[in-house]
């Protein structure tokens, strides 16, 4: 109960901040309900630099990603998972993420959108934690929904998903007796800070982002809650640089490396498919 009241308190705080303030929904640690433009192609490299709790080592993970706007309702990500775990840099898995637009209501400088999403990931890593992480550590699938409200220079989103983990590849079995199902949830907000007035597509945009992400393990209780502030630059209305720091606010489950930096480069190519 303590966990949920903390989440609720923080969520309300975040919503209040959003309304007081005014891009906004290109979240760094989560996805918005909006899709990318149809027939466009995005390429992305996410670099995770996480501090290992068991020692002073730094875990480096690289997730290169290709994103496709199949049509206005469907987008698809294909990603690879690389890590320096064990001393040498190597591939440990791959995944796919699909998002489908369920609802969209637009007004001038505003929208409300709801999307369903799914993820399937294959991973060969050894599992040393209770946290189920389908982007970096586990084989499994996730299904969920996201809702996003854009209000001029501010956006806010919420998501919830069901996650199922299975045995990882390379003989790395899911630890017996450990909960293999979890509910993930997130609340995210972003605010367009600069430019104050748009004059050209060449103006660099500066956004502030904040994500709140949690997990609740099913069958046996276990929870964590992370917070992740980030800054974002958008160049030429086409390329993105995100720098974020994720840290644990609360956890009663075993996690290997919950705290650290994420640096991401992204470039969008319009009308190429």
């Amino acid at each position, binding site marked *: 109960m303590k966990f949920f009241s903390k989440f609720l308190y923080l969520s309300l705080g975040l919503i209040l901040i959003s309304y007081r303030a005014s891009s906004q929904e290109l979240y760094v640690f989560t996805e918005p309900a909006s899709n990318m*433009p149809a027939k466009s192609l995005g390429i992305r490299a996410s670099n995770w630099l996480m501090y290992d709790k068991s020692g002073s080592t730094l875990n480096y993970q690289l997730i290169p990603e290709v994103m496709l706007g199949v049509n206005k309702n469907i987008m698809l990500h294909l990603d690879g998972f690389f890590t320096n775990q064990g001393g040498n840099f190597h591939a440990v898995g791959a995944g796919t993420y699909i998002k489908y637009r369920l609802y969209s209501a637009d007004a001038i400088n505003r*929208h409300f959108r709801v999307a369903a999403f799914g993820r399937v990931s294959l991973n060969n890593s050894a599992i040393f934690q209770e946290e189920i992480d389908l982007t970096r550590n586990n084989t499994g699938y996730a299904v969920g929904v996201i809702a996003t409200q*854009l209000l001029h*220079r501010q956006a806010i989103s919420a998501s919830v998903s069901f996650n199922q983990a299975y045995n990882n590849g390379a003989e790395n079995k899911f630890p017996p007796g450990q909960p293999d199902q979890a509910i993930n949830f997130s609340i995210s907000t972003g605010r367009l800070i600069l430019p104050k007035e748009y004059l050209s*597509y060449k103006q660099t945009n500066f956004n502030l982002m904040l994500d709140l992400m949690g997990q609740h393990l099913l069958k046996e209780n276990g929870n964590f809650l992370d917070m992740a502030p980030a800054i974002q630059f958008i160049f030429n209305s086409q390329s993105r640089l995100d720098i974020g720091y994720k840290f644990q606010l609360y956890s009663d489950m075993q996690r290997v490396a919950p705290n650290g930096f994420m640096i991401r480069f992204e470039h969008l190519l319009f009308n190429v498919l």
Partner: protein
Amino acid sequence: MKSIHLYIVVLGLLLQSPAIGQIQSVTLQASGLTCSMCSRAIYKSLQKVPSVSKVQEDIEHSSYHIQFVDPGKVSLENLKKAVQDAGFSVAKMEVKANFNNAFVASDSSLKMSDFIFYFVDIPKQNLNGDKKLLILDKDFLLDKDRKKYGGDYSTMPSANGNDRIFHVTIEKS
């Protein structure tokens, strides 16, 4: 019943009227966005529409002024679809056309290029020179603005099946 009435009017018109106006340009406003990356997605999508020669953007107001290589081949449906493919909606679309003594009144229509403009809520007048026609059909104007014109208009094929009928009005200046 209304649509049957409209078909008869339009069929009559098709039999007697030559094209009496020429499209000059289209200005549209998109809804659902603020950021320049979103705006650029629409800009790029509009540039890909056949016959579009130039798109001038006003990012702050999510507005685009569109010119054409051959105004006779403009497809308003394709312009709308380009905005939707980029992930957004058309909040307002105005067609600037040049007229030469064209008589119009409410419930009258004019054929222009491959479509027919059916006039709503205007006084009887002769149109001369450049005029801006506001499209009233669904997905071409915000719902709250469409309600001001009292009808649930949507584009439909004309009696001959080749042209599309758009409901338009001339905004009082």
